[in-house]
């Protein structure tokens, strides 16, 4: 019986000499061990119930609510917030950033697989959440923008999105508005001509840097073992056992690498969206996408790059099958989903309060709203 316990505890290899230098007798021992493993059942059954040691969570990192921005940064946050909600930055004054990245709905376009642009044309990818985007190493599903500021101008000038004809059109709209002229001047006092695309995207990015949502998960990571329920801890164990954490790790639980969609099986749709290949035209980038962030994932459906996955359960099942090569049982899927729900943090309602009268002169003084700002990128990518 002793050999059984050694095998299930996983320590048998070193003990029976299958360490660094084992040779042919090792194969025999190994085949015997395999046969025994098969009859003795799965190792994880034995380990499941135990408390997860903090040391095993080394691949995660807690986040904190950002401190309020001060001085000129606070003015930039306020300006960025106003720009974020402003429909004048689109053709026909029809859309703002918030139309497709609704801050009151976890920064996505809920219920829509893809979003509709100013002329009701559909985009090609699901609107990703703007919450915690500051933690990501690149923006867009294919990572084509290295920073939030670089991202911000994209949709504005995209013909199927906000549809502005170019930077000049955007700048003309802002220059025509005296309160914007005031706000830009105060937020960028060192600029001779403060209304530029660079300052505009910087202001939006500065505002977006404050859209960070810590949750009970962060308390748990800091050592508060009661922060997660027993079910959520079981879910965390299932998440680790299934191998989810090999890509969805780090401070944002993703958003920090490009991975191939379809590792063990080719993804069924190899045509309509080939991820980074469409950007770089390198064969080695075919079907590579940025790994999405799992913070708030329960609230940011529909899921995947095309938004075609309608339930979180299904998303987990598909990931298990295509990325980790296993058919997850219904129970495993349930456990993982329970854990994923614990990653939802509260929406910072004060911080996202839309400016009441967008054109009011008070807004220009920077008095509006909460101005928290994320610390300067603690986990910056390359």
């Amino acid at each position, binding site marked *: 019986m002793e050999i059984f316990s050694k095998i299930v505890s996983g320590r048998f*290899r*070193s003990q029976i000499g*299958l*360490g*660094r*230098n*084992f*040779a*042919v007798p*090792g*194969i025999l021992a*190994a085949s015997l061990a395999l046969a025994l493993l098969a009859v003795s059942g799965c190792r994880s059954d034995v380990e499941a119930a135990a408390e997860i040691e903090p040391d095993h*969570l*080394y*691949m995660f*990192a*807690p986040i904190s609510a950002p401190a309020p921005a001060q001085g000129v940064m606070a003015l930039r946050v306020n300006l960025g917030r106003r720009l974020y909600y402003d429909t004048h930055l689109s053709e026909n004054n029809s859309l703002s950033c918030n139309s497709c990245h609704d801050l009151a709905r976890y920064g996505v376009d809920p219920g829509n697989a893809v979003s509709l642009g100013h002329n009701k044309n559909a985009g090609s990818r699901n609107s990703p959440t703007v919450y915690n985007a500051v933690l990501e*190493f*690149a923006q867009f599903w294919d990572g084509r923008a290295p920073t939030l500021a670089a991202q911000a101008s994209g949709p504005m000038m995209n013909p199927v999105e906000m549809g502005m004809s170019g930077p000049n059109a955007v700048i003309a709209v802002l220059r025509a508005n005296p309160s914007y002229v005031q706000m830009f001047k105060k937020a960028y006092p060192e600029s001779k001509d403060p209304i530029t695309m660079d300052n505009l995207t910087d202001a939006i990015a500065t505002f977006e840097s404050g859209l960070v949502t810590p949750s009970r998960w962060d308390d748990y990571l800091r050592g508060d073992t009661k922060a997660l329920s027993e079910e959520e801890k079981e879910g965390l164990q299932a998440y680790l056992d299934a*191998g989810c954490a*090999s890509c969805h*790790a*780090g*401070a944002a639980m993703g958003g*920090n*690498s*490009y*991975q*191939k969609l379809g*590792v*063990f099986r080719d993804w069924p749709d190899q045509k309509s969206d080939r991820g980074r290949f469409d950007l770089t035209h*390198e*064969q*080695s980038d075919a079907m*590579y996408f940025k790994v999405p962030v799992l913070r708030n994932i329960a609230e940011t459906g529909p899921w995947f790059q095309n938004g075609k996955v309608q339930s979180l359960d299904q998303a987990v099942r598909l990931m298990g099958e295509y*990325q*980790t*090569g296993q058919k997850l049982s219904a129970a495993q899927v349930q456990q993982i989903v329970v854990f994923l729900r614990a990653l939802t943090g509260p929406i910072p309602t004060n911080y996202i309060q839309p400016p009441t009268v967008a054109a009011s002169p008070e807004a220009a003084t920077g008095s509006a709203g909460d101005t928290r700002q994320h610390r300067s990128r*603690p*986990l*910056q*990518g*390359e």
Partner: protein
Amino acid sequence: MRRALWIFAIVIVVVFLGMQFHQPNFGLEPVNPHATLEAQLHPDAQIHNALRRSCYDCHSAEVKVPWYGHVWPASVLLQNDIRKGRAYLDFSNWSNLSTEMGQIRLISACREMRGDEMPLWYYRPMHPGASPKDEDVEAFCSWVQTMRLRSGVAEVR
């Protein structure tokens, strides 16, 4: 009885030969020299050589597929191991990782080698000398630790 055995043997041989038509797809694309761990992080010669010797047969696009790797059923095992191995850790595509994720993967690699979990036990008898020496593992781990401190990714424990 004898005849039944013969038929059984023939069926086995036919199935074995038939399955050889199934050619594995290892998914080994040409290496982009700017995307590799070496190009991105410049490990010293000791670490570089140890990684190449011990890890690259599953964790890179530079897999040396042995002759039996093209013979079913070994081919299927090999194909899955390479795909899985590269999904977890791929030294040929290091530029696909942020600094944070790169650190996490290197820390994982250090932990697995220290725990003698890697290379996989069934890989070792086929590749004598592939297992990293203890001093190589320690050199690797202290390199990872230095980089971690330098990169300022302080929050990754």
